[in-house]
């Protein structure tokens, strides 16, 4: 590998390869620190178990509010994990290097957010059926619930990435991040639980799912732009 020592005129590593690199590296780092992986999951489980304990263990209550509880819990665990999305990388300088990579930043941010979802959102979707059974939800509702979580949790990650990027250098990070993001999460929450309620009421859920799909497409395409802009701002300030 002899150095060419003249301005390179091509970007030899393709965008897709670079995005793959980002995902692989983030997954690697997460699996090295398993407690980072498990924390959101444990949190999710705990929030869900708190309701039978703290509110009421009655089957009718749980059946009625189970899907709402699972959704709120999923939302909160995503929120909890968002603080880590960029902060470690910011502190150790990896983020600077990401911004300086010769690929469009918003694609790299997209890859990073995707990795975040794979680590925090997906396990939660996989765990949801178990918890749903514990909350006495019915088979059909459980299937719909998991489907809405599967569509909805990436939306949460992507919207959240904007907040994480905006609050990056700031000391009051965690709480501030939640303040900025929770209002934006509300439509997802409403339609997520709404879909399950519609299914339980026997209505057709096609339209609801289409709407959630629209949220997903919107957030995946737009949020990385906003996050990339916010990251540049935060880095300028550090």
């Amino acid at each position, binding site marked *: *590998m002899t150095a060419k*020592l*003249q301005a390179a005129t091509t970007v030899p590593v393709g965008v897709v390869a670079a995005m793959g*690199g980002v995902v692989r590296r983030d997954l690697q*780092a997460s699996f090295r*620190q398993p407690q980072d992986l498990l924390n959101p999951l444990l949190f999710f489980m705990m929030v869900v178990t708190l309701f039978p304990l703290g509110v009421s263990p009655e089957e009718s209550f749980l059946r009625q509010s189970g899907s709402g509880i699972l959704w709120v819990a999923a939302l909160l665990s995503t929120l909890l994990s968002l603080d880590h999305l960029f902060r470690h990388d910011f502190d*150790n300088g990896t983020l600077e*290097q990401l911004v*300086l990579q010769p690929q469009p930043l918003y694609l790299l941010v997209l890859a990073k957010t995707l990795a975040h979802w794979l680590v925090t959102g997906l396990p939660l979707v996989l765990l949801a059926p178990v918890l749903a059974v514990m909350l006495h939800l019915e088979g059909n509702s459980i299937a719909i619930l998991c489907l809405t979580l599967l569509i909805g949790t990436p939306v949460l990650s992507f919207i959240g990435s904007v907040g994480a990027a905006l609050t990056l250098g700031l000391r009051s990070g965690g709480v501030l991040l939640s303040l900025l993001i929770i209002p934006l999460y509300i439509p997802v929450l409403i339609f997520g639980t709404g879909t399950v309620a519609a299914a339980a009421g026997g209505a057709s859920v096609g339209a609801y799912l289409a709407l959630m799909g629209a949220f997903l497409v919107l957030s995946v395409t737009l949020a990385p732009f906003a996050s990339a802009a916010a990251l540049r701002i935060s880095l300028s300030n550090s």
Partner: protein
Amino acid sequence: MSKPLLQATNLQCERDGRVLFDDLSLTIMPATLTRVEGPNGAGKTTLLRILAGLNENYSGEVHWLGAPRAAQREMFQRNLLYIGHRTGIKAALTAQENLAALMAGRHAVSAATLRAALAGTGLAGYEDVPCSQLSAGQQRRVALARLLISDEPLWILDEAFTALDTHGVAALERLLSDHAQRGGAVVVTTHHDLEVPGMQRIRLVPDKVAV
């Protein structure tokens, strides 16, 4: 090759109400080593981050190979190697994984090359140790290993010599002047007395009239 790599004109930057520099112009030619000097708090880091495109809170113009940098961001970044105060090393990954990650978006390198680069900075035997278990100087060496396999012409290094022992400092000095001799450009800050033949200096003098 007389075309300047990087050219900045009329840079002005203020931080918390204090003007760090004003009307600063500079040209980075190929085959030069430039040292940015000044006491603590003069604005060296800020200047380097502006040149690297990390800090956008400035006014003035930056050109890359004669054209505005903003218009060719990706090409510029492809040709720039920046190492800052914070080195870009993830504590959870091993030395080799870290180096691979840093090279990922740039050019393809084989595992053997990565190990050779690590060995070149004195980390033979530490390739598979998580970086959280390396000492301060060893962590910097992981970051500096990039220099050994870089094909970027422009190097911008902030406090490049921090935490290195005497051998490390001498070896790095040689590497930097080699890079300049072979046509590359180096912009560097350091507080130890770096003296390289033909070194250029940019001196930042703090202006103490703070409001």
